[in-house]
């Protein structure tokens, strides 16, 4: 059964004809062409497919697209501008928080959820916030430090304004 679903992906409205059992991650990758969101395990264990659904971090492999008609979806493609990294992405690069890069899109989205929830997250809050995302290369110390530094930079920007 085909269902018409409207989504606002990274600010842009889009319509899709989806099957009733189609996963959000497949809609994003196959239909919207946004292959930044990765499929790691497909069963909600690894967090590689993390996206923000109405501002909340979810595993896109465990969401039926048909269920989220009208929702706002934020993917890694929405971070930064064309040819320009976001502050968080830049911090990941500078801190060496990337190796193979497969966990990175999900890690960035989980990080954005942490930064939206806490203005100055503690290390514990950061570690907890990315605990649903697995990285098998660099480990987590550099990722945590990239998120913490971004939080600090954003706090300074806010107070400067």
């Amino acid at each position: 059964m085909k269902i018409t679903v409207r989504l606002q992906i990274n600010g842009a409205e889009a319509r899709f004809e989806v099957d009733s059992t189609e996963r959000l991650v497949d809609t994003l990758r196959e239909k919207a062409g946004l292959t930044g969101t990765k499929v790691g395990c497909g069963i909600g264990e690894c967090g590689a497919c993390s996206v923000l659904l109405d501002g909340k971090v979810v595993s896109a492999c465990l969401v039926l697209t048909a269920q989220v008609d009208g929702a706002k979806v934020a993917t890694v493609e929405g971070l930064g501008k064309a040819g320009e990294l976001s502050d968080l992405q830049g911090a990941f690069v500078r801190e060496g928080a990337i190796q193979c890069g497969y966990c990175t899109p999900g890690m960035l989205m989980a990080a954005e959820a942490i930064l939206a929830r806490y203005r100055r997250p503690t290390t514990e809050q950061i570690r907890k916030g990315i605990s649903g995302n697995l990285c098998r290369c660099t480990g987590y110390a550099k990722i945590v430090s990239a998120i913490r530094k971004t939080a600090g930079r954003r706090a300074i920007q806010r107070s400067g304004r």
Partner: protein
Amino acid sequence: MKSEGGPKKQDGKQRRKRRRAHVMVAFIKLTLLEAVTEFLWSDGPESLLIPGGSDILVGPRPFTDKHILIDISQVTELKKVTVGAGGVLSVGVGLTHQEIVDHPVIRRRARLLQLACGRVGSIQIRNRGTLGGNLGNASPAGDSIPALACLDARVVVAGRSRRREFDLLSFFTGPGETALQVDEVIESVQIPEREGRSVAFFKKAGQRRGMCCSKASVALLARRRSPKSLSDVRVALGAVAPTVLRIPEVEQVLEGRRLTPAVIREAAEACSRAANPIDDIRSTADYRRQVVGALLTEGLFEIADHMQLLEQRRRSAKRRGRRR
């Protein structure tokens, strides 16, 4: 909204016929509880309720005998939190685990439920999975269940023009099985008000802390009777029997006694004896039996420390009072 039960239902039936040839699954979003129960009344055996969907998309999908997905994530009646007569807290089961964790009223009245919901899956799962899904799945490892068992919760289910209420544990009839009838949907859990100051913990053992299904879990709720002992102790275990268990043997050991290492050890041993686990993909019976005792021990020592700290603070406050 009025017409939801009507024309779309016809639609669903037609599509279902076609599906048998094309392996198609129909999908319908319902936003009124009444529409859900009406729909289930006519098409229940073939329908699958989808609150968050986080469990349905894992593992073998049961779409061979369930070819209608009913999306109930937008049923606002299932998302209500109210405090009724006699202080009974009613929690709509459509809330996600994270919504429960963040809810200020639930924090004041059912902290143990928050502790358990906060340990379900990962943040990604907690943002999607609901309390109702956790109960409806009826997994013996469902993390909210031992907590609700300790809280003396009752389950309210809504059927076509009727409601039924269950003691939480009598609602579960076996692993993956509940007393729900085909036209019924879980509506809310009712948590009675507790007097006095409570202490509580929820502990689980799993593959990793950030994201796991429990190999075994322990919930405890009690009142601080004196600075050193507990009363009205409730202990429930998850994933060590076909359904979640309350453990009166352990509760009796702890009732009114000082939390000394010897008493804690006695309780842990009783806890391991009461467990009736199995070997499965996640763990072995032997490990589960040992680990429930260890989880209880860990939690009780934390409570003993906490109570000692409170007592020290109370004494030093008293001393300061006297000096003045």
